[in-house]
């Protein structure tokens, strides 16, 4: 969770210089605690200097105490757990459908021509407008949140899969044909590994958006979850509770993103081998 995380070493370009990425990552790890301490210091200073009341801007100490209290009561874990479950199920559903559909759209341009207007339309409608409908149709339980999450996660993975599959080197397809490879072999030995770097780009975005999806779902109607806590905190002017929920969400997003990066690290090892 170092700084410069988003932009160092794009997985899409096979020529990215690995040395640069490694250098900034190192810098990130050493400076991260310093930057964090600096930010917390500024925050505390701002609160003291302006003398804000806690319901406007609580200081870091107050938020930390609130977090501790919520953790001890088991409140934080209960809501965190609910949101995590929605996110993970949403991710699996959205990414799963996107990968399968993306593969077929990538293989059959005609199919993409046919479906792309609807896919684009589905993305131009704001998710906050769709979420209430889903809550009406599927209730305010787990299902509607998972669907909102899956819906928002779907598109980046879909697009990256289509692009990844379409960009498979036609000469390598030729090679596989000349070697009498079966369609199954072409998929596992050529298409999948060739498209993976591009697909991972989409997965990173999907991982981050999944958090947004779950919170949007919870905002519309829920009785548990971090998004629900934020809503609750707003209602009773418990600003430090909002802060605790927001920081928890940030942490969840960081962990998900880190998870995708770790998978990339494992699966795309060959990309780090430079000339």
């Amino acid at each position, binding site marked *: 969770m170092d700084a410069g995380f988003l932009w160092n070493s794009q997985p899409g370009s*096979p020529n990215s210089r690995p040395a640069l990425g490694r250098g900034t990552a190192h810098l990130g790890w050493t400076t991260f605690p310093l930057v964090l301490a600096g930010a917390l210091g500024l925050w505390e200073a701002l609160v003291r200097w302006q003398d804000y009341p806690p319901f406007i801007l609580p200081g870091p100490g107050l938020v930390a105490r609130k977090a501790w209290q919520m953790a001890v009561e088991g409140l934080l874990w209960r809501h965190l757990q609910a949101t995590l479950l929605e996110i993970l199920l949403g991710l699996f559903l959205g990414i799963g459908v996107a990968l399968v559909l993306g593969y077929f759209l990538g293989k059959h341009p005609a199919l993409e021509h046919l479906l792309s207007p609807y896919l684009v339309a589905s993305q131009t409608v704001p998710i906050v407008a769709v979420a209430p409908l889903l809550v009406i149709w599927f209730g305010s339980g787990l299902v509607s949140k998972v669907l909102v999450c899956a819906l928002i996660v779907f598109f980046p993975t879909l697009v990256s899969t289509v692009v990844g599959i379409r960009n498979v*080197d036609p*000469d*390598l397809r*030729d*090679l*596989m*044909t*000349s*070697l*009498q*490879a*079966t369609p199954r*072999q072409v998929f596992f*030995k*050529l298409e999948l*590994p*060739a498209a993976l770097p591009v697909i991972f780009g989409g997965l990173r975005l999907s991982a981050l958006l999944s958090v947004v999806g779950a919170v949007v779902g919870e905002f519309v109607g829920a009785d548990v979850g971090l998004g629900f806590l934020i809503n609750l905190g707003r209602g009773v002017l418990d600003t430090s509770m909002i802060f605790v929920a927001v920081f928890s969400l940030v942490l969840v997003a960081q962990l998900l993103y880190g998870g995708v990066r770790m998978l990339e690290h494992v699966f*795309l090892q*060959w990309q780090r*081998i*430079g*000339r």
Partner: protein
Amino acid sequence: MKDVSPPPVLELHWVSHAYRSGPRPIPALARVHVQVAAGEFVCIVGPSGSGKTTLLRIAGGLLRPETGQVLLDGEPLTGPHPAIGFVFQRTNLMPWRTVLDNVLLPLELQGPIGPPEREKALHLLETVGLAEFADAYPAQLSGGMAQRVALVRTLIRDPEVLLLDEPFGALDALTRERLNLELLALHARYRPTVLMVTHSIEEAVLLADRVWVLGGQPGRMVAQVPVDLPRPRNVAVVAQKSFGQLALRIRELLGLVQEAPRRGVGHPPGGR
């Protein structure tokens, strides 16, 4: 038709082809009727657009000719065949596989890989001097090394027929020459039947038993030039008088020799 003593391995029977992807068909190849004997090394030269690559793809079963037929060992060829190995101009190595895994790919598609297969791959890599690069990735190789790996990958299935589409076209002149000599050595050792498209007339004369000269659009067979330089060959062949004469003869057939100061200079008497 000239009689060749060993039976033909590969026969093209009045093969014609046109590409029909655009609004109007583009004729590429017209009525080519040739055969290649076992162990023979044939080079194909011709201006761009004369159907060299089309001919090669048809001979390898990658492309179905519109009319005519391809026979491999007397059997009609309907598609890619395990006895035919292709080497493309681009090396087509998979960047996510190590050199060894790239070489093993053709065998992997046929069945499980065990120690004997690995052994064989390493041995072949050794013959082109790349044994210690077995665990390297393609990005770590030079162009010449990568093309050697591609060649070895094709050889691992012990192909009867080797089809090379300008394999060394993207390499620098020195590397290219070195690889030509390695190819000569490999041919002398394994004796595959080779069909190779090239842009270099000298390369064709150095390597081939016979040079097919294609021309026109659609491409047709202008001439088949036998190269009767003795084998085994080495670089010294280049200095022989007949080498230069053959190269000149091919240039004439390609229409490259115009307004020579004195006509007839360098003509091999009778030509054969």
